[in-house]
């Protein structure tokens, strides 16, 4: 599976609007028979070509489990995750993952980080540097090619990770709370960057997040999940105009969507909080 994809992204891709990622009745249970915890419970939804979908839910709703299943890091699950009529049971070359934790290689410069996936496929040095430079520019890090991650801020490192994922032309970009560790202002500005990239590349994207404004700011659709076990509570269409910038955060429509989704989320989040507190109390009694 190491064929070098061509630079033109549109070629060989389905028309916009065709579902490229199908999540069909996925169930994932952890633990032994008695103390089993269902993390993901009969979850189904699609992501269409060129679409930006966010999955939102409180901590403990199985978002990250879903991320790991779609990314192929969790091979054993019930139901189907399909790409091109192929069931995902391991990492699929069409999926590019961006992780929540800082995941740049500290021993590689920015350009060598971004070119890493190409290096694995044996792309010649000059070509892979050219392509890496293109994506470094795309995430707005021109001039930082020779720096090492230790010399960059958290937001810059996360952009390096995103460029590293984009460089292998993934048909589906899969991101797990990529901005969770960043402050609110940086997050909004990076959101702009993501929107811009998405529009430029027509990149199909699935974003896992617990951040309401982030989800509404970026998405075409939002999948709202329930607290444990994680089910789909609702799928909301976000009909904000495109091209979009972070200015949209101030609009009435934006506020309306945030309020609407928070309405769905509040119940789940408070249920999650209560259960966490109960567990803490129980722990204190036992310990």
């Amino acid at each position, binding site marked *: 599976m190491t064929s070098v994809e061509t630079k033109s992204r549109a070629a060989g891709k389905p028309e916009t609007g065709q579902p490229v990622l199908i999540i069909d009745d996925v169930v994932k249970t952890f633990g*032994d*028979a008695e103390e089993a915890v269902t993390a993901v419970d009969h979850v189904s939804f699609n992501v269409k070509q060129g679409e930006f979908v966010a999955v939102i839910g409180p901590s403990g709703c199985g978002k990250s489990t879903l991320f790991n299943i779609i990314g192929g890091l969790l*091979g*054993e*699950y*019930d139901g*189907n995750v399909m790409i091109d009529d*192929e*069931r995902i*049971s*391991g990492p699929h070359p069409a999926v590019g993952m961006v992780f929540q934790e800082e995941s740049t290689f500290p021993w590689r410069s920015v350009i060598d980080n971004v070119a890493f996936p190409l290096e694995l496929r044996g792309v010649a040095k000059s070509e892979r540097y050219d392509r890496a430079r293109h994506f470094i520019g795309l995430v707005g890090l021109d001039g930082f090619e020779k720096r090492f991650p230790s010399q960059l801020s958290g937001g810059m490192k996360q952009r390096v990770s995103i460029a590293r994922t984009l460089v292998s032309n993934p048909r589906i970009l899969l991101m797990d709370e990529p901005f969770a560790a960043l402050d609110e202002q940086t997050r909004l500005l990076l959101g702009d960057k993501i929107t811009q990239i998405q529009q430029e590349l027509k990149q199909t994207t699935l974003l896992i997040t617990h951040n309401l404004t982030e989800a509404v700011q970026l998405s075409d659709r939002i999948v709202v999940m329930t607290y444990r076990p994680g089910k789909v509570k609702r799928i909301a269409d976000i009909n904000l105009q495109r091209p979009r910038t972070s200015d949209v955060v101030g609009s009435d429509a934006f506020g309306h969507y945030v309020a609407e989704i928070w309405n769905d989320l509040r119940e789940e989040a408070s249920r999650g909080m209560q259960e966490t507190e109960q567990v803490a109390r129980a722990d204190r009694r036992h310990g």
Partner: protein
Amino acid sequence: MASTGAIAMRVPVSRAVRERRETRNVFYVRAIVALAIVAIWEGISWSGLFFGDVVPSLAKIIPALFKLLVNPAFWANLQITLVEAAASLAIGAIAGIVVGILLGSSRFFGAAFEPYVYYLSPTPRIILFPIMIMWFGVGIASKIALGALSSFFAIALSTAAGMRQIDKVLIRVGRSFRATPWQMATKIYLPAMRLPVLTGIRLGLGNALITALLAETKLSNQGLGFMIMQIYTRFDMPTLYALLIVVFFIAGACNAVIGMIARSTK
């Protein structure tokens, strides 16, 4: 792994069962490794590859071990060595903790003197033995001095580091509650520094013990180090092995005891 649509079969093994199985496997690996070492040892021993008794069979080492343990000279020498190590540790620990607190509490002292302590700490201390002999004579005192010197460095460094590692927030919390210096010392500094100081003492005891033993091998008429040299000159290899096993065991036990203290005072 193209099990399209199939529901993966999981064998329901409970965690407890899995853990028990793994513990058993660990035991097997250890047993195999231990047996392999013994087998190789005996193989070399019987092969006669080495001259004479250089690699004696366990059949000779084990009786030598028993004979050593009933030998009153062994216990007398052990006592000397332990006294040396204990005295070394006491002196080294007191000096080390005092110096460590000085280095750790004042940024100035730290910057002025800690580099010396830091870079001298890993130098081979045994070469100071001639000086110690000149100053303190050939008896037990020179070994104690050298041992104290050896344990001092590790204890001073980890005390200073422990002092600095205390969470600054805790100190601010103490100050905000207007704790007196004595309260700061007993309620914040001491509890927070217990572990690093104990770590220093553990390293220091190891250093004190080994240094005292080595010094005894060089110039002494008592102690386990002296006994090792006595046996070596007699070329009594089984007893030499037996004694070294005992000494290694004692060193390990000292280490374990302080480790246990560190854990139990938690």
